């Protein structure tokens, strides 16, 4: 349905807009004939044309003005449409004037109409074009509003994903387990207990500090992951081993904060800590031209229950990479024979 027809208030306003046009037409024709005759002919006719002009809206939607459509073709379509609309209007006007002659012969409406037929045809065509232009404006306005709304929605979505990511960042069980380790160490090794307290405090402070930034260096992100791993090593002992291969070109790149840390956390929580004999987490970062590649690989128990598989954190990571980098960012997850590997590729950015 036409957007003007579908809303009673809008329709009222639209018809009210046609009133001055009707009055103008009446004034223009009243020189030759009487006022009442001109008014009787043109006021109803302008209302009729108001409805005819609404068809310009459909025309504008079928022939949008954009790069793909030929301007000539669109212009031709509008000339033909205006001529047809005006011709129909003239036809209706002729019939109406004839009817008026029968109802009120004294007005001489038919004669007055016939005299000015050509002029009225031209005015009708021009009015139809005006209606087309207004419709194009309306369409453009709607499109820009929609684009704005979509942009707001997208930024909200991004923000939401970011917030969720940050909130999910500090796993409460990690805290409880760490506190339990501290509780255990207080009697057997007070110095180690204190060191663990400090590590934990540093980790929490850094998580909050880095999380507030838009971009941080990969080196900072790795430093945070190191603190996390150091805390987990207190808990897991020699079961947790880590190797890292990074080149300085890669660590200088900028990344969204807390993008890689959750991967390392997954590797511990769902990988190494689920193995009796533990294992080695391999972290690698490299820069190849415009792309930064970060890889976290860990051994895992292939027979572990499905509910223990790292789903949520990885989904969040994918969402973040997509919202921040679009098609330029990819997250590749592989599991094969007890090895779990996540590879993140994003555009390499460096600090200005």
């Amino acid at each position, binding site marked *: 349905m036409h957007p003007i027809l579908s809303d009673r208030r809008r329709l009222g306003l639209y018809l009210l807009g046609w009133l001055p046009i009707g009055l103008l037409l009446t004034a223009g024709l009243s020189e030759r004939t009487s006022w009442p005759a001109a008014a009787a002919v043109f006021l109803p006719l302008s209302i009729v044309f108001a409805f005819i002009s609404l068809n310009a809206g459909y025309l504008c939607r079928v022939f949008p003005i954009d790069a793909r459509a030929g301007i000539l073709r669109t212009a031709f379509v509008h000339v033909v449409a205006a001529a047809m609309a005006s011709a129909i209007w003239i036809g209706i006007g002729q019939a109406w004037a004839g009817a008026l002659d029968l109802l009120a012969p004294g007005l001489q409406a038919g004669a007055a109409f016939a005299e000015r037929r050509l002029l009225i045809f031209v005015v009708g065509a021009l009015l139809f074009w005006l209606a087309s232009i207004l419709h194009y404006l309306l369409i453009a306005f709607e499109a820009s509003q929609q684009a704005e709304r979509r942009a707001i929605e997208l930024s909200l979505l991004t923000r939401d994903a970011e917030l969720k990511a940050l909130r999910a960042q500090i796993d409460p069980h990690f805290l*409880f387990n760490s506190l339990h*380790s501290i*509780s255990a160490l207080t009697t057997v090794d007070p110095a180690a207990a204190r060191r663990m307290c400090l590590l934990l405090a540093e980790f929490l402070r850094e998580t909050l500090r880095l999380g507030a930034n838009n971009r941080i260096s990969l080196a900072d992100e790795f430093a945070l992951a190191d603190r996390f791993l150091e805390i987990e090593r*207190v808990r*897991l002992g020699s079961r947790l081993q880590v190797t890292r291969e990074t080149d300085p070109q890669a660590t200088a790149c900028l990344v969204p904060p807390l993008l890689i840390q959750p991967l390392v956390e997954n590797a511990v929580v769902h990988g190494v800590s689920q193995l009796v004999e533990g294992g080695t987490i391999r972290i690698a970062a490299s820069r190849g031209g415009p792309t930064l590649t970060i890889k976290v690989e860990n051994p895992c128990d292939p027979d572990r229950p499905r509910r223990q598989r790292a789903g949520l954190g990885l989904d969040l990571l994918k969402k973040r990479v997509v919202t921040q980098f679009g098609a330029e960012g990819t997250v590749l997850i592989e599991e094969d024979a007890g090895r779990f590997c996540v590879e993140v590729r994003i555009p390499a950015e460096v600090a200005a």
Partner: protein
Amino acid sequence: MSNTRIQTVIVDDEALARGVLHEFLAAHVDVEIVAECGNGFEAVKVVTEMRPDLLLLDIQMPKLDGFEVLELIGGDVTVIFVTAYDQYAIRAFEVHAVDYLLKPFSAERLAEALDRARARIAAKEKVPEGLVSAGRARHTPLERILIRDRADVHVIPVDKIDYLESQDDYVSVKTAGKTFLKEQTLAELEMLLDKDVFVRIHRRYILNIARLSKIELAVKDNRIAILADGTKLPISRSGYARLKELLK
């Protein structure tokens, strides 16, 4: 003297967490720690061999979680769960744990839990047969089947199962050419398995639908399921109806 002390086994994969329990339990002269285990497999082995009175059991552990350990060792040991995760509390009481300690906990909180354990052990309360697996049954569909072979434990993810065959009170689990015997009836297992994957094709057989290669008509109405590895299994008339329903 040693007969009257509470024979206790500590199960936790973290050395420090075992250390806390050790330290706190030292204050309770009636408690004797007879073993410490670092994973679920060890726990099943030790509990089966030593038959302790009390189990202090972590939940999140490699290989077998605390609930799986309990399922494998049966119901005649008193259990206190010790974990950092609060979301298993309801399930813990379903399997009749006497208490549920959240890490980190105080010596007083552990003492409280021990009081409850003493009361249960003194009353020689046994967990009624079947209740442990009933608690387990709420968490269907089953993701893996646990089989205890004396003190050894086999963990078989359900997607690796080819088919199950009834052998009186046992079920033989066929996976990649190997056979494991589980002490459970086929009907019980059928209830626990994912209905979209496992179908009872015969009074004696449950088939993993992913293994089905084709169905052949033998004599008259009798059909035979041919598995990807060539194994042939009979299909009963009602089994065929269920199979058709699933393949629809």
